[in-house]
């Protein structure tokens, strides 16, 4: 119980520390991006405006959350060691496992809050834009039969929000949580924050090709032995980040089946847990 309290205290402190680092300034850029986009695309048809708002907002959400996960997590251990705060904490009866778990909880809280704020901002702009288009449509269709007006208004509403966007956003969170956990694992044997960042970014790109390597290796194509070894290595060691890329299709109006959504969330959770336990294992043996 005491260990849990300690973990929670570290998580809360990590979260506060990150908030004090003014990481939320990136939200200003996000806001500028989506509001600026809305102003710029006003000459397009309303369907195009909504499509572009969703494309850019959810794309930016994915970029910002991934960057935040990698950059914020990579500096934890090297910074705590440089500041010597880690020694003060671990000198108390706080297991290394709890220390790491607290750090992960802190970053996950930050990611959840950041994605929540971005989602709120995105939905607000989408709603305001929808209201504008609805008012414009009502003004243009004055005097037409009520049924025709309703059909036109329904068409506008259908082009704006659809419930499928929410699973897409939740998967963005899971993907960023996976990246945070992976970066934490890398930082347990990294000598500097920069090394962990570079490694995480490299794995981010390789992870998006993992599915290709897996298909290549499983297809049984006759290839050189070293190509096969490479494909097997990539398929087994790196995470399949393409599995978490639903947002592009969700924007296009494709529904994610519930089973697939839940299994993808479970896969993400599994990756987070495995990377965390490996991080704890390596960190337990690290000389401080």
């Amino acid at each position, binding site marked *: 119980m005491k260990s849990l309290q300690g973990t929670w205290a570290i998580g809360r402190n990590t979260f506060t520390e990150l908030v004090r680092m003014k990481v939320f300034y990136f939200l200003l850029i996000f806001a500028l991006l989506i509001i600026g986009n809305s102003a710029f695309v006003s000459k397009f048809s309303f369907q195009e405006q909504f499509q572009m708002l969703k494309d850019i907002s959810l*794309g930016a959400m994915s970029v910002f959350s991934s960057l935040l996960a990698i950059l914020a997590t990579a500096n934890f251990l090297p910074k705590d060691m440089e500041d010597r705060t880690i020694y003060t904490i671990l000198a108390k009866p706080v297991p290394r496992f709890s220390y790491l778990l607290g750090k992960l909880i802190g970053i996950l809280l930050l990611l959840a809050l950041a994605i929540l704020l971005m989602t709120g901002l995105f939905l607000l702009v989408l709603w305001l834009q929808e209201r504008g288009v609805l008012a414009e449509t009502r003004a243009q269709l004055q005097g037409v039969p009520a049924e025709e007006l309703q059909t036109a208004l329904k068409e506008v509403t259908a082009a704006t929000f659809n419930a499928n966007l929410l699973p897409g956003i939740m998967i963005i969170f899971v993907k960023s949580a996976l990246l945070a956990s992976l970066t934490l694992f890398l930082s347990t044997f990294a000598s500097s924050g920069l090394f962990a960042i570079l490694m995480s970014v490299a794995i981010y*790109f390789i992870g*998006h090709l993992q599915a290709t390597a897996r298909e290549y290796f499983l297809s049984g194509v006759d290839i050189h032995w070293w190509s096969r070894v490479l494909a097997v290595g990539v398929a087994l060691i790196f995470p399949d980040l*393409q599995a978490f890329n639903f947002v*592009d299709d969700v924007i296009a109006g494709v529904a994610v089946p519930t089973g697939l959504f839940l299994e993808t969330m479970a896969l993400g959770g599994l990756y987070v847990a495995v990377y965390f336990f490996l991080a704890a*294992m390596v960190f337990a043996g690290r000389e401080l």
Partner: protein
Amino acid sequence: MIVRRLLSVVLLAAFGAAILPFQVRLAAQAKAAHLRSTALDLDLRERIGQMGFLAALSGFRSPLAAFLWIEAHTAWENTEWGRMAGIFNTVTTLQPRSLLYWDMAAWHMAWNASVAAMQDEKQPSEALRIRAQRQYFNLGRDFLERGIKNNPDRYQLYLQLGVLLRDKLEDHSAATDAFLRAAEFPDAPPYCRRFAGYEMAKIPGREREAYEFLKALYLQGEKQRLPTLVNLLRQMEKKLDIPASERVDNP
């Protein structure tokens, strides 16, 4: 420390091997649900450049498609039709499940570019202007047909293909088929079936079939009895010499 690092890599590989069947199953499920079906190949790499391709590979297909769409709009303002067609190809490759992109690309080609080709003052030969116009019609058709291949589970592009075949290519038989395919979807609006009937009525030799088809729609109730349908049925009754007792307005 080194032992632990090595052990972590071994455990990671073991975990990767354990979840491999799960990953394969998830990928198959996603494919079946028409998710993640974009073909990121060398052709696309050449069209969008190295950075664009990297962005597309990293899961940023949709913002990239949005930026390219804005570029296509600029090309439209400058009436650069060829460039527009190229950008549309790229955008639809990046976002093949977005109906809007296929629909708008086809509309720009078959409606805007084709009209511009017919009014091209630099081309004195009318025959060549007509030829260019037909090429843009076909380009529009090609966008819709490729869009349908990527979205066989949605009615909208079948409907748009029907409209293009009806209004631009005047291929009533193909338009009928397209409207009928659209009407097969449970969420398709009821006018898809009516449009199919109207087009069928224009096909020489299929007037009787069209009459029966439209009459069946008429008998479905008030919602289908629009003035166009009723007028067409009356004209066909006269043309086909339908006995008075069998006519739709027979009390």
